[in-house]
């Protein structure tokens, strides 16, 4: 009885979680404008999505989202890694102050970050558009990179850098040949995190995209929904994003179980 209850509970939970996605995925294979009407199987929405349907504006929004995400992820990874190395080598008191300062932007609500950046750009009369969105995204992604690189630095043998210098590496060579390879896993996870944060962002983008017609996926959908009804092409798009994320997750999980398997063999 207890077991049955537990199973029912978990199934209800899973259905509630995944039903909306499954419904969207199912209805991405039909042509009906309104979600819920099944007018027969069709892949027209998919072809329309990629052939520049909806005036190509949806496709442009996707392009913007991806390019901003990639630039922001790469730049914040570079900045965040350098910052993490710098903070790591500070004296303990200064280090704690920097940790604290690094935490504030992460705990700060997005809306506040967005408004403050908006005011900043207006104050310095910066024309808002693609560049300002990229700058904004780098700004809020960098602290997360710092946070994901720091544990790798802490794990590192404290003498590693000195050992490299001792063997004749200049400080730059030591950084490039020893420190970076050591903290690479932290940098990669930081970069992935930054990328997802950037793609996911709505509030900050809305305040910094200006009025030159720049749209990312999130602002596009928002604007679209306000115009009344969602564009049908969003259904295949959501499905593609969901499947991509699912595949990525499966790959990551498979990889981690594989490395764990190797690890246990070694010891």
């Amino acid at each position, binding site marked *: 009885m207890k077991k049955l209850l537990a199973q029912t509970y978990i199934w209800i939970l899973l259905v509630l979680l995944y039903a909306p996605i499954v419904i969207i995925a199912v209805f991405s294979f039909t042509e009906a404008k309104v979600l819920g009407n099944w007018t027969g199987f069709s892949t027209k929405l998919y072809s329309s999505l990629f052939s520049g349907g909806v005036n190509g504006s949806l496709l442009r929004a996707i392009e913007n989202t991806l390019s901003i995400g990639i630039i922001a992820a790469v730049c914040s990874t570079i900045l965040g890694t350098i910052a993490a190395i710098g903070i790591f080598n500070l004296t303990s008191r200064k280090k704690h102050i920097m940790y604290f300062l690094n935490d504030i932007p992460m705990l700060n609500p997005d809306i506040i970050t967005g408004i403050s950046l908006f005011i900043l750009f207006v104050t310095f009369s910066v024309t808002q558009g693609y560049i300002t969105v990229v700058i904004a995204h780098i700004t809020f992604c960098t602290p997360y990179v710092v946070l994901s690189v720091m544990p790798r630095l802490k794990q590192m*043998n*404290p*003498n*590693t850098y*000195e*050992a*490299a*210098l*001792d*063997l*004749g*590496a*200049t*400080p730059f*060579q*030591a950084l490039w*040949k*020893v420190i970076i*390879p*050591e903290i*690479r896993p932290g940098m990669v996870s930081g970069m992935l995190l930054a990328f997802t944060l950037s793609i996911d962002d709505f509030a900050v983008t809305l305040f910094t995209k200006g009025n030159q017609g720049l749209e990312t996926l999130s602002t596009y959908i928002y604007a679209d929904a306000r115009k009344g009804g969602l564009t049908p092409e969003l259904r295949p798009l959501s499905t593609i994003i969901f499947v991509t994320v699912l595949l990525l997750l499966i790959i990551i999980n498979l990889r981690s179980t594989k490395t764990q398997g190797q690890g246990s063999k*070694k010891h």
Partner: protein
Amino acid sequence: MANNDVIIKIEHLSKSFDDKKVLNDINLEVRRGEFVTLLGPSGCGKTTLLRILAGFIASDEGTVSLDGKDLLGVPPYRRPLNTVFQRYALFPHLDVYDNIAFGLKLQNVPEDEIDERVRKVLKMVVMSDYEERDVESLSGGQQQRVAIARALINQPKVLLLDEPLAALDLKMRKDMQIELKEMHRKLGITFIYVTHDQEEALTLSDTIVVMNGGKIQQIGTPADIYNEPVNSFVADFIGESNILNGTMLSDRRVNFIGHDFDCVDEGFGENVPVDVVIRPEDIYIMNNTEKTQFTGTVNSCTFKGVHYEMFVDTDEGFEMQIQDYNAFEPGSHVGLIIKPSDIQVMHKERTCNTIKGRVIDAGHVELMGTSFECDAHDFEPDSEVEARIDFDKIDLLDDKEDGTLTGEVGFILYKGDHYHLTICIDEKSANYLYVDTNDVWDKCDMVGVRILPEDIHLGRPKAAPLGKAEGLEAIP
């Protein structure tokens, strides 16, 4: 092996961290091909000294030269020295081969030469066939061999070793000691070795440099350091010893534990207080109590493998540690003899506390930043004075609140019938009190310090311009 060709010369080297002096005027010469060990308890400055040599930290004052050329201005990556770290510090993302080849690859040495040299050095550390291995899959001992190989392949002029064996278990440590000694003999490279393990130092070194509190206490061969320690710290740190208060009566005649003994030391003067060191194995113990120098009662007897370790209470109330191949039953009355050549006499570093201070008024004086009651009516207010307080006139109290001052118990020395403690009042300004007590305290205990007004004897400081002869002789 060792000759008089100096390779490293350190002069007046000092270093402070946050106002705390960790190295204080270090002077040291290292000869080419020598195996030098820097030995001392943790925090004595030995690792700091090594790190200054390697170039990882800068010194505040002083010079270091290598082959007559200044070393301190050279960045670590251009110094012809290599370091073996305590925790190996291998690069985990590289395999054994690439770890060892790291230095040569940076110098753009041709591939086939690198290959040959890596194989040669791997053979030397008995790690052939391990080239492809992931360094993290190796045991501690194997990792340390790789670390040694990685340093030696660059053919350094001096190899610096920072407690390289400290993380290994005892058996492995013993084996590696023998191998290190053998490597040193074969290669002829100068080794500077840091350790806190006195046995390791005695086993490996040509020369031992004993350090404490940022200062060099003694430099000498292992035998010198063991047989003729210059002060009670060295005697206590190296091996087991009985350290006792004594009085040098005249040349070759010393009094301690209530008896006069013949000894071999000269030049101390007459009736001069000294410290006397007797190694436990140098006291002859026998059942016959006649014709012996002194007698006592065996208190305890423990089998230690090769010998028995006994504690004997002498009839005059001193406890002596004795090692002998024969066991003597606890409770038995025994006779004891010490040969003149086994008595090591040392100058006392001090015979009482001497503290610089300032008179506040006729009834108060400021010492170590605290006001003490005492008779100061002979002195002008605000004048500089020197206070003398005998070791046994300082009370240590359990409750910090009860004392005028608070301090931490530092170095503890057992003197046969009492303890001689170093109490650290303020580390930064090097305020220490030296106290004789019968109570048992542990290192790092926090204690209250109380000094009675009549036990503080004031005098004018020696260097004062109007210094009258106030009876303040020099305190060694």
